[in-house]
């Protein structure tokens, strides 16, 4: 596990909504190693989502520097950011954000089309255990299934980085656990860097690294040498 696959250096983000500038992030510095499972945990409004937006290439930062896999994405323009999202990042949303008008398989395909080194969508769908639901529309799937399709969609692009925004937020306990297990297993088996953003501190146990965020800045970064399998976590 090498350090510095993802590096945040004094990142600052100021929103100019209306007259008053709002500082969402300041003095954020930490790094994440390749193949790690990193949990970024904090209360609502601590700045987790802003952090995710910036890391996901959905938003720009005001100051500081972010390096992902040796590339300084903080200096990227809109086009480069799009390309970055396209090939290097996989997103898993709290509300799955599957495209309602596409079947499970198609939802994966739509992502796979974008990446040059994409995995075969059907294979990925089978990997998440939903091979037989390929032709179903999202509305015909349960929440957990939807989220598994969403993860498959993210994985199909074969990204370097998997960003998960409260992946269990809309799921019940058992389903949430199953989804987390999928994420952990994927990371362990493929060596993919997985970043999970959550307010649920219980998840910290499954992480290799825990970044605690509070009031727009990093409170602590803890390495967890003895990450436990998801099954053993209770909350």
């Amino acid at each position, binding site marked *: 596990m090498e350090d510095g696959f993802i590096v945040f250096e004094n990142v600052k983000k100021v929103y100019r909504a209306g007259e008053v500038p709002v500082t969402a992030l300041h003095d954020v510095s930490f790094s994440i190693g390749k193949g790690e499972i990193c949990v970024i945990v904090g209360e609502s409004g601590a700045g987790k989502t802003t952090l995710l*937006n910036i890391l996901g290439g959905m938003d720009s930062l005001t100051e500081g520097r972010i390096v992902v896999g040796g590339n300084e994405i903080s200096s990227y323009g809109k086009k480069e950011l*799009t390309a970055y999202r396209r090939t290097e*990042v996989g997103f898993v*949303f709290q509300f799955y954000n599957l495209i*309602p008008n596409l079947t499970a398989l198609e939802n994966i395909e*739509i992502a796979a*089309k974008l990446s040059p080194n994409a995995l075969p969508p059907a294979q990925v769908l089978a990997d998440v255990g939903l091979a037989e639901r390929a032709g179903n529309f*999202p*509305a015909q799937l349960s929440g957990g299934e939807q989220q598994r399709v969403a993860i498959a969609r993210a994985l199909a692009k074969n990204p370097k980085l998997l960003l998960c*925004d409260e992946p269990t937020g809309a799921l019940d306990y058992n389903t949430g656990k199953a989804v987390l297990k999928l994420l952990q297993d994927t990371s362990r088996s493929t060596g993919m860097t997985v970043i999970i953003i959550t307010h649920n501190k219980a998840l910290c146990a499954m992480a290799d690294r825990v970044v605690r965020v509070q009031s727009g800045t990093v409170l602590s970064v803890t390495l967890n040498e003895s990450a436990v399998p998801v099954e053993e976590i209770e909350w």
Partner: protein
Amino acid sequence: MNRFTLRMLFRSIRSGLGRYLAILAIVALGVGFFAGLKSAQPSMLSAAENYFASSHMQDFQLLSTLGFTEDDVDAFRSLETVSSAEGAYFADAAAGVGGSVEAWHFMSLTQEVSLPQLTAGRMPEKADECLADEKVFRESDIGSTIMISEENDGETLDLFAFRTYTITGLARSPRYMSGDRGSTSILSGSLKGFIYLRPEGFVSEAFHEILLWCDLPGSLYSSEYSHAADAAEKPMRDLLSVRGRLRRSSLLHDAEEMLAEAQDEIDSGWDEFREGEQKAEEELAAAREELDAAEKEIYKGWTRVESSRKELEDGMAAIPGAREKIASGREELESNRAQLEESEEEVKLFRAMYEEAVSMLDEEEARLSELLQEADLTRYAALRQYYEAVAEHQAEVIVLKGMIDSAGEDADISALQTRLEAAQEALAQAQAELAAAESSYVPDDSAVVTAEDVIAGLHERASELEAQLADAEAQLADGRAQLAEAEKQLDEAEAALDKAERDYPSNLAQIEYAENELLQAEKDLAEGRAEYEKAAADTESELAEGRGKLLDAERELAENREEVLSRLSLELYCLDRSKNAGYVSFQNDTGIVNAVSYAFPVFFALIAALVCTTTMTRMIHEERTVIGTMKAMGYGSGAVMSKYLLYSGSSALLGCVLGFFLGTRAIPYIVWVAYSVLYSFSGEAYYYDPLLYAICLAVSVPGILSVTWLTCRNELSSRPAELIRPKPPGNGKRVFLEHIRPLWQSLSFLGKVTLRNAFRYRQRFIMMILGIGGCTALLVAGFGLRDSISDLGALQYGEVSLYDISVSLDPDGFSSDDAAAAIWEADVLSCAMTRQEAVTLIHGNKEMNTHAVAADAETLPQVIDLHDGGGRALPFPKKDEAVITKKLSTRLSLSQGDTAVLRLEDGTELPVTITGVCENYVSHYIYLSRDTLGSPRSNNALLRLPDGADADRLAASLRTVDGISYVSLTSYEREMLEMSISGLDLVIVLIVVSSGALAFITLYNLTNINIIERSREVATVKVLGFTPHETAAYILRENRLLSVLGALLGLVLGKLLHRFVMGLVDVESMTCPVKISLLSYLFSFVITVLFALGANLVMRRKLDRIDMAESLKSVE
């Protein structure tokens, strides 16, 4: 509804102003276009009506070939229906303004009827001042002069009091409402413009026309007006014909006298000529007879000479033969002579025998006479005494008779007598005694008898021999005579031959002389003939000259007569407004504008309803939690509903009011601008129709309200708990195309998504298709309208009326033959003589005034192509059959095989069978066979010229021919038609703009809602790494797809709409083909797609602005 809900309403409006304005705008647009176009026609009509009323535009124009007097005008003025009557002068003349000479229509200024309107300068005050056509002249022309050209014919020149007129002002005339200035018989045939002169500017003993203003009730073109006009026309026509005849009879009287004198002179000339001719002919006949006799003589002479010469030659040729014959004759003669000598010897023998017999006889006789002398002496001796007594007594008687004779008268002879008697008695007794003695005497004569017998025997022998001798002698003499005769003949023949031979030269000379004589006679004859011929020719030419002179005089008289009578031929016309070109074309144009107004409301109403639905649906969806909360707090459905009803209702009301007033002002103005190029009168009138306003309000506001109610009803009936919870994600659906596996799999991924999305939201799908389709349909209808109408010229004059020139003939004029000659001499490709009449066609309870064209089956199809809608040629009607144009067929519900009644102008009614309905675009006709109307004379000729022929020149020259009353050029009519149609172009622009607005509103509205509803999806795909371009494609491709589908549907809808609109362009004088060109379809399609792309561009910006962070938000 309380303050709270009201405040919420205002906040909703303010926060979603765009949405509020969307409803307002669509209602305003719809109402505006509808009301605007709807009032365009009435607005134009009322402007025209004001203009006509203020200028006292004539209701009737009366024309007479003989003009009118002041009394005539007074007579018309006194008619009950007539408000004003005024006599006026006019003339078409060539005149120059600054060099170029053109044809102008000069009119006298009127004071009461059809008043010109001064647009610049001042009215003319002097006789040599004038007002000029404001369409042609500019203000800078005021002060310049118009010169009447000397090229005009004398009659025209005489009409003008001056040669130059000064322009003091410009004017427009209600009689020239459109740009059509009409045609004329001079110069190129078309009039450049009009010029108003003061009446004193003309020199004419009679008015040329009477203008009547009747101030009839009813608005322009209304049936009320036309009924009033029809009612007024009847007494007018009656009076017109009375006045016309009156005028004619007075003029005719003078003319007849003059002509009669001239005719008398010519008649006497003819009499003289005929006398001379007869005399000359007689003389010539006598001479000819003489010559013929001489010729006959010569001929006879020749035959004679010929026969003489032949005879002579024949004679000469016969001479040697004759001589031979003579020689042989002589030989024969000699042999005869020898025979004759033998016969002589025989005779001599006979003579000897005979002489011997005679001498024997003589001997015997002498012996007998001795015997007899002895017997006699014996007897005398026996009877002597008796003889002597008789002789004695005879002597006594003779003595006595002598004594008696010698005694005198008074001697006494009685004694003598007695003695004589006794003597005579004694004689008689003696004689008796003698006789007795003689008879009693018996002589002894035996010797005598023997002698006598011997003699008798001898006698017999002698006479026998004598006879034989005589016979022989006679034979001999005969032979001798014959011989002599033969000899004589031979001698004569020889002599004759000799003579002939001797005479030959002199005979020949004689014949030759005769021949010479004949030759001379022949020469003389030839000379005589030549002389005769010359004399005959001289006479002939002299006669011809005389005849020519007389014919010339006659022709001249005929011409004079014709001229005088043609000047006196009375033609009367009572022309109502429908004969005014401007008046008619204005009606057509406004009719089209009116029809266009029907094209809009349908689609705008639909689109307004759809826009309202989506807007309100969206609004309610957005506010579902608010609604739920309110309901949870205890507000009733009604209270909640009222907010939305107020929201949309107020928007619709505002939109309606705004749209109505903007539309009714702006659109008639725009239309008016388009047509003001064509029509010369100003002052468009604002036309406010409360009914129209009420309709707009009654349709738009309740319409929007009910749409709102229907939309909200479902949502509001939900229970509050449902409303507060977020809406579950929409269900994915397969589209039918997926079931066609190969097709679906061949689609690109984005293609599949697009298709799914496109068909996913049915409501949006329908709206999109209808909105875009409506746009295309409007465009198709608009362009199609233009196609249908602008092609009228090409269709009518290219496919139906093939003739280039229509010539009206005076049917009863003396000079129609001249006219016919002029037409036949013209270089035409084909020519049809027709009889045209105004007729009324009646079918059932419908009737229609139309124009009958009676012609011949051979010629008419060459100048008018009678074909049905499918382009199939229709057979020319036979007797009592008719082909009618489409307009008549539709208006009178007549179709092939029906029987209609044709009412002629004189009231005669004829049943005709309709054998075909033909295509026709301008005006309407009924085509008949000439014999259906009883084979009347032609009053019109339709000429078709070869390609490249100069129709204008021919028309101008035909106009000068007597007997031709009017010549119209097809090209000119077409030009006028097309000019009037060009006003339509701005109307088309209006349609394009409005349909563009329609397309844009639809697309904007729907795409906007689409984007808002799917902003989360958009954000997600953006996060997934879609480039802006891909994102736009992902969302907008379905717009494109739907636009294309909508546009395609629109092409079909447009065709239907076009048909509907064309059905409304029901102007009597036009039949528009319902046709749309391919190009129009193409344009409509392309324009729609461009509008859609424009709307997409706007939407794309909106897409770009969607924040990816949306994707992280919770669902609703």
